[in-house]
């Protein structure tokens, strides 16, 4: 397992960083937030990213993907994390991985290929009000009918669910709300009869929606037959590593900005970066970011190589990045002082994102619990 970037990956990193700095800088993220409403991201930009191959990075070429891996995916997401670009990478990955891992060839051709090309946008409607972090808690029901299924239920926090034209919804065909088995995944057009959506406004200005399914009827071939606890885990683990890449970019950016501030800002006639207490804290933040980077690289490579301990490494990365991102951004705001508390300065954006990201796909405690379980103790 190689833990530094290959030359090809360095190139992707450079390209992504340049592209995002130019077309999706943080000032644009702020502007999209201030406008509120609408997509919350650039539909054209997303299309352009798809054309660059970034949307399909870890997917087979035969389906329109780039046939690369999560090592490359996290590189792009790190760049996106630096500018907090709101484009729907996570939503896209969640739904695309679901199609890849649970769908059949016809389903993939019909829904996955257009998504990777950027001509269709997907979202995965999984979480419900009581889900918290459980990857098996689903109360939404799919009842078999003569022609297919009828779906009833309510989903919350569906990432970029407001923007998707096609939803993949997790609905229970059997079992209690928290049974590991009995969860089906169903492809539902977002404009299907009985689907209603409300855009949510999040503290980190990431796009999300409440989605209600009332007697939504789908045909039998809308069901992805391969859904199982294992495939659902595989889907979430991949989205989690992608999120960790984004978090890494965010904490690196927050650290870099803070170091810049410490180098420039003067108080009591000296630059505040010369205060030893702040130096030491900045050095500790640096260490946290460096360790986070290692965990992200490790997890991405493990997924790509199908390593036996991949799930553990994913949980390591998420637990580590969650705490590091929170610590680094808390320290950042403290070191900025009063201006760090103002909306006018950008640093607060990262603190908000840190907290929200840490509560997405399982928080640090949840992933430690998972690690311990996977380690057999």
């Amino acid at each position, binding site marked *: 397992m190689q833990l530094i970037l290959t030359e090809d990956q360095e190139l992707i990193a450079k390209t992504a960083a340049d592209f995002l700095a130019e077309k999706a800088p943080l000032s644009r993220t702020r502007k999209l937030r201030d406008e509120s409403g609408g997509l919350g991201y650039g539909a054209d930009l997303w299309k352009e990213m798809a054309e660059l191959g970034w949307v399909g990075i870890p997917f087979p070429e035969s389906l329109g993907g780039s046939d690369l891996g999560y090592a490359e995916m996290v590189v792009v997401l790190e760049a996106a994390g630096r500018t907090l670009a709101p484009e729907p990478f996570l939503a896209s990955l969640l739904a695309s991985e679901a199609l890849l891992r649970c769908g059949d060839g016809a389903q993939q051709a019909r829904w996955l290929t257009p998504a990777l090309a950027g001509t269709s946008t997907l979202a995965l409607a999984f979480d419900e009000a009581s889900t918290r972090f459980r990857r098996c808690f689903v109360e939404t029901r799919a009842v078999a009918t003569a022609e297919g299924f009828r779906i009833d239920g309510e989903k919350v926090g569906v990432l970029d669910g407001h923007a998707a034209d096609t939803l993949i919804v997790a609905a229970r065909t059997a079992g209690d709300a928290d049974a590991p088995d009995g969860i089906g995944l169903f492809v539902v057009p977002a404009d299907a009869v009985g689907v209603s959506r409300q855009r949510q406004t999040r503290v*980190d200005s990431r796009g999300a929606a409440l989605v209600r399914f009332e007697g939504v009827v789908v045909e039998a071939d809308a069901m992805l037959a391969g859904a199982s606890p294992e495939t659902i885990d595989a889907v979430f683990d991949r989205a989690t590593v992608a999120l960790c890449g984004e978090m890494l970019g965010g904490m690196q950016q927050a650290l870099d900005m803070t170091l810049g501030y410490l180098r420039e800002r003067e108080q009591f006639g000296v630059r505040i970066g010369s205060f030893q207490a702040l130096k030491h804290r900045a050095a500790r933040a640096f260490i946290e970011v460096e360790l986070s980077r290692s965990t992200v690289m490790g997890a991405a490579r493990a997924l790509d190589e199908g390593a036996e301990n991949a799930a553990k490494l994913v949980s390591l990365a998420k637990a580590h990045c969650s705490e590091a991102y929170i610590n680094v951004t808390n320290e950042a705001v403290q070191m900025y002082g009063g201006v760090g508390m103002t909306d006018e300065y950008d640093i607060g954006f990262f603190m908000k994102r840190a907290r929200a990201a840490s509560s997405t796909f399982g928080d640090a405690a949840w992933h430690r619990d998972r690690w311990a379980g996977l380690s057999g103790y």
Partner: protein
Amino acid sequence: MADLENFRADTRNWLEANAPSGLKGSSFSELEGTWGGRKWVFKNADQEAWLAIMAEKGFTAPTWPTEYGGGGLSADEAKVLRQEMSALRLPPALIGFGLTMIGPTLLRFGTEAQKLEHLPKICRGEIRWCQGYSEPGAGSDLAAVATRAERDGDDFIISGQKVWTSYADECDWIFALVRSDPDVKKQEGITFLLIDMDSPGVRVKPILLISGKSPFCETFFDAVRVPVANVVSEINAGWTVAKALLGHERSMIADAFGGGGGPKKASSGSLLAGLARKYAGTEGERVADPVLRDQVARAEMETQAFGLTVARSRDAAKAGHQPGPESSLFKIAATELNQKRYELMVQILGPQAVGWEGPGFEEDELDVTREWLRSRGNTIEGGTSEVQLNIIAKRVLGLPD
């Protein structure tokens, strides 16, 4: 003592007879209090009547001399008044920086003309004051005042900017530090000045925080003309005035933390346990997640340890020990505790703490998120934790510079 008991009886009778019955037994929060001033809109007629009656009696500033609109009471009498108001659960008739900050400053440093001009209006709630200390370039270095004051005959011409001027957009006058001599040691060229905010060239802009709206403003001075007669104490002696006022402010902050003003909403232990039960499930009465339960217990215990420390400090004060720089301890402990509690609440709420507004989140959930963000400022405002640690290291622990 007999006199005091007579005063108590008189006061009680007077309060019972005169206080609007609609106010009795009402709970009081600072946000709902009467701040007064030209732009003030009373919440209801009772509030307006209550201010008029109390001001008439001199009871809005009970210990100030009667000639300036105060009540002329002794400290003991003022305490009795507070006790009797508290017994009837009557809110203060008037609050604000006029009563707590600039008033006492003028009583100590002001000219007779300044006292006669400003104190009665403060007592009657006619003029609302804000404080203009901080500047964009200064931060913790309060003496780094850059707002210029250039002498022009009997006036100063003021140009510059203040930040963190709380409620400046609702105030009438501002007391501010200005740089009257740029050529001396920074503490020695500062003047403490009273400025009418209706003067041409004063502009106020509210500050949006990461947690949303705030009472803070930026206040800009563009060649504002202010009479030299508005200088408090001497020209270039403003730092002395400011320090006295800062000491006063710091003890108020410590009081606020001591009085549960620190970890506010969060001060009830059952709140955290209740949230943990609600969001992470229960096993009987127990919080189902044992790791979370441990964190809740830790936060609750730290809260109690802090409460005991405040109580111990009060007992020491009662026993006649002078409060010293340990108020820095309270500032650090209270604000970090408040942050920890909100960090924990946000962790407990999990995906329900990512809301900013609108559908999918309960009002309480949105409050937790906003308050969590706001709490991050606690360790910055009123003297950063870093400054407080410096103070402890130097003044309490005697560590060398």
